[in-house]
């Protein structure tokens, strides 16, 4: 049982009394009320506040970095790199790109704005209350979901992940520290998965529920959200990378792949599990050796985090099984489970046990990818691709129909731009509902482009 003080630290805003369904309802009502303050802020002011908060987080002192490291198991170097990357990923420019791409500019978020087609005026409203069910400790995923709600001017109730609640709490505190209107519109709490009364209190108060988690958790949430409440789920995803044979030589390519594997210890939905190299098993093996060297170098700069015994056992077993797989080769850190490269001739996509264990597989040509990916197609997210733009286009032509949402250069898989189509759909637009003002039919007719 957590002490009162421990419990107090696990909430935003901090509170000593235990959370009950009644108190959760009161909290949700207060958040809804705070929505007015958020609505009155111009979106550029929200963006500026977010930027200041993220910049402050990027400069977090060693004590807080240590706290975050302890909560997540990440090495402090991973925490620092993650915080630094956040302020770049959600910079003013990036967030403006996002708004531009999805709704053509900030106008409709701040008031009724004339539509570019001249047929009337439109305004976008965010949910009166968003409930975010958070799953894990990949910072950009947590930050993205909160920031999107704020851009939509929607107050947020976060259900903290049981593993690593620390980052989400620190983010809320940083945002509140910059502007109390944001602070009043944010709350972060936790309750046990089995406590359905708490779920009912939270989901019943929401206009929209956005949930992250495993397949089982998503099914549980789906069953608990009332039919009138909108539910957006982000189930678990898998990513891959594809490298043309000609690109398997340079050390820089192996280093870029190692960076993608090492980022957030491979916990992101954009982290690669399997790397395909077009060509022979020999060239895949040679590439595997280079990736191993790059992972070893990375381990010295940014060591893999702490694992549970179960997670380490999973790596030991994956390595041990591959040692006896015909044609397979294992390159691995010695005396630890820090990093593992398994070169495997079998083309079927291999799902990793994560924590910097990656499979490298030869593939005859891109045409063989659909068969190799078919069993995991519903889970595909991002494909990193080596080579040039033409190769990336070829990869997209093959992987797009399978469900891959993003094809990106190697080394930046874990840094999607703010305006990316997470899970293949617009994010901000999905949160918004619209009010249109029509012009008279005569005026709309006049505005209609003439054929």
């Amino acid at each position, binding site marked *: 049982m957590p002490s009162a003080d421990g419990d107090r630290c696990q909430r935003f805003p901090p509170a000593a009394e235990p959370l009950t369904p009644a108190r959760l309802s009161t909290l949700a009502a207060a958040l809804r009320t705070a929505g007015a303050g958020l609505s009155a802020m111009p979106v550029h002011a929200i963006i500026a506040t977010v930027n200041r908060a993220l910049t402050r987080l990027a400069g977090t002192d060693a004590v807080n970095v240590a706290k975050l490291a302890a909560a997540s198991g990440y090495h402090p170097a991973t925490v620092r790199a993650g915080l630094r990357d956040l302020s770049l990923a959600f910079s003013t420019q990036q967030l403006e790109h996002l708004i531009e791409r999805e709704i053509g500019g900030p106008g409709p978020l701040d008031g009724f704005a004339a539509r570019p087609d001249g047929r009337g005026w439109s305004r976008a409203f965010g949910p009166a209350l968003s409930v975010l069910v958070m799953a*894990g400790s990949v910072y950009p995923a947590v930050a993205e979901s909160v920031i999107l709600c704020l851009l939509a001017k929607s107050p947020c109730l976060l259900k903290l992940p049981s593993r690593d609640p620390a980052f989400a709490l620190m983010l809320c505190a940083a945002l509140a520290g910059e502007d109390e209107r944001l602070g009043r519109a944010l709350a972060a709490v936790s309750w046990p998965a089995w406590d359905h009364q708490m779920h009912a209190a939270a989901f019943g108060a929401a206009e929209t529920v956005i949930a992250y988690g495993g397949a089982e958790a998503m099914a549980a949430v789906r069953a608990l959200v009332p039919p009138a409440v909108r539910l957006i789920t982000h189930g678990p995803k898998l990513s891959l990378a594809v490298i043309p044979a000609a690109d398997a030589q340079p050390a820089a390519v192996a280093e870029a792949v190692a960076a993608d594997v090492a980022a957030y210890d491979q916990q992101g939905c954009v982290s690669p599990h399997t790397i395909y190299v077009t060509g022979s098993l020999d060239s895949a093996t040679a590439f595997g050796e280079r990736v191993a060297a790059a992972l070893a170098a990375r381990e010295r700069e940014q060591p893999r985090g702490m694992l549970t015994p179960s997670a380490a056992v999973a790596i030991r077993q*994956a390595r*041990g099984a591959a040692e006896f797989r015909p044609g397979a080769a294992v390159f691995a850190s010695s005396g630890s489970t820090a990093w593992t490269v398994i070169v495997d001739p079998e083309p079927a996509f291999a799902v990793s046990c994560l924590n910097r264990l990656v499979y490298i597989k030869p593939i005859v040509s891109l045409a063989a990818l659909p068969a190799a990916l078919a069993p995991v197609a519903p889970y595909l997210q991002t494909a990193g691709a080596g080579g040039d733009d033409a190769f990336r286009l070829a990869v997209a032509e093959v992987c797009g129909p399978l469900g891959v949402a993003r094809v990106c250069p190697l080394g930046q898989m874990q840094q999607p731009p703010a305006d990316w189509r997470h899970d293949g759909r617009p994010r901000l637009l999905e949160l918004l509902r619209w009010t249109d003002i029509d012009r008279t039919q005569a005026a709309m007719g006049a505005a209609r482009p003439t054929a």
Partner: protein
Amino acid sequence: MQGQPAERERAALATELAAWMAEGIPPPSTPPDEQRFAAFAQRVFTYQFTANLAYRRYCEWRGVTPETLAGWQDIPAVATDAFKEASLTCFPPERSERIFETSGTTQGERRGRHYLRSDALYRAAALPNFDAHVRPDGRPLTPVVLFFAPAALPSSSLAHMFGMVTGSWGSAGSHGDGHTYFAGPAGLDLEGAAQRLAGLAAAGAPVLLMGAAFAFVHLLDHLATAARRIPLPAGSRIMDTGGYKGRSREVSKTDLYRMYTTALGIPDDHIVNEYGMTEMSSQFYDGVLRGERTRRKMPPPWVRTRVVDPETLAPVPLGTTGVLWHLDLANLDSVAALQTADLGVALHGGFEVLGRAAGSAARGCSLAVEDLLHAQR
């Protein structure tokens, strides 16, 4: 040593090991015979290094050969998942007397296979250990098994073991001509088992009730729905095995053992937990029936178990959780040194099993292999 000489050494080892096993299990207070174990371990490793090419390459890659082996602790262990990849044998696998398979938890998952060259050696290892821990008093017992008969599930090492131990005392201890096995194509026959137990209770015949722990949970639930209690005659005992999770509602071991006592009248010191693996030929038991007060698994003389840190593979201090490493000399024809996925706690003179490592549940939004298997269940 290859071909004929290797075969001769194998035959000699099988005979000598069986003779050692036939000496039985010494009392817990007896210090283990380290010299004898070390000598056998060196010979078994040399034989396996010679006769199993895949294992030999694995050892050479680690710089370990019979000539350089410093002690049994350094024998390279094979991960149990490797049994899913290759036939790890020192003989042509098509000449197996039996093949045991791991129970795949999901469809499509590859099963691990343990090829048994000789049932005789398996038997030689299993029976004295079972007798020492489950029937140290030699009392006649009527077996009731909450599992499939061996013929119904020939690939199951557990079914084979139940069959072997119930068959070993023939019909001498059996009471009446009732059924012994209460699982079949339709699943568990809980009512059949309950009636059989009630009949034996009425006849005053002590019972040995055996099965997987999840089956016991079902039996206890079945009895509880009718508020039934079947106090079994004095001397009756339970041998349960396997995890308590996943297959039925989750029950803590303490709660389950309390329910055994309440529903079946079996006291805590007559409940023996067994731990075994498809990939092993030897088993482990609690010593409660031989007067040990705390539960711990003590390896039989021809087995060594270490609890190691999965990160470094170094042995963990007493009282610490790690992963189990076994050297089972009864695995003469496969691989003796095994790196398991079973978590355990190192105890003085033995260990306790915590269960199969749950794998690495994803901490973020990615999908770990365990989650995917779960999603497809």
